């Protein structure tokens, strides 16, 4: 049962990444990114990070939709312009990325990971909530502040753009 | 307007609108009565559903409604007045004269002309009712019948003549024979001078050329 789910999620992620790698169409790439992110959310569920999976769906779906909307706006589909975009430095990029992948795989394969079995935590969300407000309170408050600043900043930047 | 004032106004107006529409929703239990336009309260029935399920039920039509034309062909003296007055020429009459009076209409007018063809094309009719006004025997009337839609536009041409082709030919022949008899009986009248000889040549055209002032 679980192997089916794993293969399905792997196919989702690979298909998404494959489309992003090979398409020239920005909007298609954004849809493929969404597919990839949903697949990764499934992976999070498989590694017992349910809350992270839901956060991933909620925030990234919203984020990707905004990305799409901006992509459409910036490429001016309404005026009939193309939404295609090219690439350059292809060979250097290929060499570097394949090198990165090979290096990471090598490191993973030689690393001696020790896994311990932890019993499944039933009330994971409550525990995360408690640790947000105890162990990670500084990070939590900082994130809240950064979110506020980002909101105000994005609104301000977009307002300036609209005045133009 | 203040912020809280906006909110309270929004709530109040929404509430008012919602209450108004739910009243109509419950009033829909009552249906409209099938009353004629002549009833006194005809225009005061905004409450309850207003729909008339037309083919199944109808509002009564007043007796003097101006809808489909009907010709009572037995009373028609084929005077052609209706065809002449019709503004859209929707009446097509082909008369066949008869040698003698062959009947009487219901109001006592003698019948002298057969109607070989009395077609009213309701597709052209503009429902003005002038033909019914001029009809001397009041045989041409407008009826209450308003639903005469058809699949073929030619079906809108109503034919009122009852005569068959054979009868028409017979009557025509009869009248021609009568004319021939008449001609034989009377000596031929002297021919009238032809009109073209009488007519003068038209006067010369006025020679006038409007002058166009030159532009400076």
């Amino acid at each position, binding site marked *: 049962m679980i192997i089916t789910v794993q293969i399905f999620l792997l196919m989702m992620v690979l298909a998404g990444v494959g489309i992003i790698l090979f398409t020239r169409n920005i909007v298609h790439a954004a849809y493929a990114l969404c597919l990839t992110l949903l697949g990764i959310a499934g*992976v999070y569920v498989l*590694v*017992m990070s349910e809350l992270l999976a839901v956060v991933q769906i909620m925030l990234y779906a*919203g984020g990707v939709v905004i990305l799409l909307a*901006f992509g459409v706006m910036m490429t001016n589909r309404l005026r009939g312009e193309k939404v295609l975009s*090219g690439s350059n430095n292809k060979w250097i990029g290929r060499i570097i990325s394949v090198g990165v992948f090979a290096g990471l*795989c090598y490191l993973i394969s030689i690393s001696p990971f020790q896994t311990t079995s932890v019993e499944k935590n039933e009330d994971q969300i409550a525990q995360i909530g408690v*640790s947000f407000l105890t162990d990670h309170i500084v990070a939590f408050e900082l*994130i809240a502040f950064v979110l506020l600043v980002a909101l105000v900043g994005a609104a301000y930047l977009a307002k300036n753009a609209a005045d133009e | 307007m203040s912020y809280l004032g906006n909110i309270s106004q929004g709530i109040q107006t929404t509430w008012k609108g919602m209450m108004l529409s739910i009243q109509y929703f419950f009033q829909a239990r009552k249906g409209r009565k099938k009353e004629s336009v002549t009833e006194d309260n005809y225009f005061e029935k905004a409450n309850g559903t207003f729909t008339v399920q037309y083919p199944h039920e109808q509002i009564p039509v007043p007796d003097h409604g101006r809808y489909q034309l009907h010709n009572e062909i037995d009373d028609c003296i084929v005077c052609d007045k209706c065809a002449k007055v019709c503004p859209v020429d929707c009446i097509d009459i082909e008369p066949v004269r008869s040698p003698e009076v062959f009947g009487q209409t219901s109001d006592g007018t003698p019948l002298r002309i057969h109607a070989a063809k009395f077609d009213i094309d309701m597709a052209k009719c503009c429902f003005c009712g002038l033909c019914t006004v001029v009809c001397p025997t009041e045989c041409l009337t407008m009826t209450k019948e308003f639903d005469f839609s058809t699949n073929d536009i030619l079906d809108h041409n109503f034919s009122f003549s009852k005569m068959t082709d054979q009868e028409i030919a017979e009557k025509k022949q009869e009248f021609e024979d009568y004319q021939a008899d008449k001609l034989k009986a009377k000596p031929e009248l002297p021919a009238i001078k032809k009109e073209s000889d009488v007519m003068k040549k038209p006067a010369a055209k006025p020679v006038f050329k409007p002058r166009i002032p030159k532009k400076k």
Partner: protein
Amino acid sequence: MSEQMLTYYLYLAAFLFASGTYIVLTRRSAIFVLIGVELMLNGANVVLASFSQFDPAMNGQIFAIFAVVLTVCEVSIALAILLNIYRKSRVSNLDELNQIGNT
């Protein structure tokens, strides 16, 4: 969960990271570059989450949640800046952005 399974997830994370690198390095459009950055961050998050399952305090998952929230902030700000640039100079490809000022 065995070590074998864990390494599979890590390979997946490595693949995501490498593809993100390729997209960031080669694509000309700014939006594509943002997509690549997202892929790289997701690779990192997969690593964090897959290690977090062996941690009773779930620090990895909490860190990944913070990372996701920060990424969304980053994307929104980046897109607002890109929109500003595009409105000003009609350029959405990064290699054409070679001027400072209003031209």
